[in-house]
């Protein structure tokens, strides 16, 4: 099995980064639920991860002097949420929608953590020869 330490954990390492990033975005939506004129933000988690993992999106170092490519860009393309109903003060935060998204995001985060734990314990048992 030709693996480097980087690829041991598969997609879950990056998933955790973007899940926590999304939690941050959703948290600021919730905090601004009563701010006039605030527009709710979000990003498409699936497309962000796809972009990182498709061959076209991967940058390879073909020369030893190349600067290492940072696989985790600090910013993701944030979009504006389409509101279910208009509000008088221009705020587009729907607390219920944000709460549901936040809960789902948290659950997905826990799923990734669970997968990581599973991988670690299987590697450990392989190393111990159990």
């Amino acid at each position: 099995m030709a693996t480097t330490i980087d690829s041991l954990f598969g997609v879950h390492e990056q998933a955790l980064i973007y899940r926590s990033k999304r939690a941050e975005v959703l948290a600021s939506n919730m905090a601004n639920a009563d701010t006039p004129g605030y527009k709710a933000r979000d990003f498409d988690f699936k497309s962000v991860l796809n972009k990182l993992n498709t061959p076209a999106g991967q940058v390879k170092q073909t020369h030893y002097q190349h600067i290492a490519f940072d696989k985790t860009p600090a910013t993701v393309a944030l979009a504006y949420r389409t509101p279910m109903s208009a509000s008088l003060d221009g705020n587009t935060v729907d607390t219920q929608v944000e709460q549901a998204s936040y809960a789902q995001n948290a659950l997905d985060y826990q799923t990734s953590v669970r997968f990581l734990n599973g991988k670690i314990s299987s590697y450990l048992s392989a190393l111990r020869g159990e």
Partner: protein
Amino acid sequence: MSLYNVFDIAGSGMSAQTTRLNLVASNMANAETVSSSTNETYRARQPVFGAVLQDEMSKQDVSSKGVRVLGVVESQTPLRTEYAPQHPMANADGYIFKPNVNVVEEMANMMSASQSYKNNVEMLNTAKQLLQETLKIGQ
């Protein structure tokens, strides 16, 4: 780690909602404060919230970093004027002035503020739980 930012964001939300609750309490307490001139009369106060934006120079895409109270505004609705010549605070014409506080509106405002506060607390608890699980990876 972005999850740590959730603590700051939820904290800013809780602080802003506390200001709102304080103003509601102040409005309710002063709902029946009588005065003899329009200048001295208490006026209903409301906070104005504004989003705290990320440093625009360093990041391309600006996402909010929480909420803050931009200021407190006084309601411009007319004061309640009552003709009560026997009242000790009555002016020369026999009128007293009462604040423009709408108690029912304030009650609704209080419920909305406490609900928003609870939402922020829940969010913080969830983030805390996620971080605890992250710390336990591989154990």
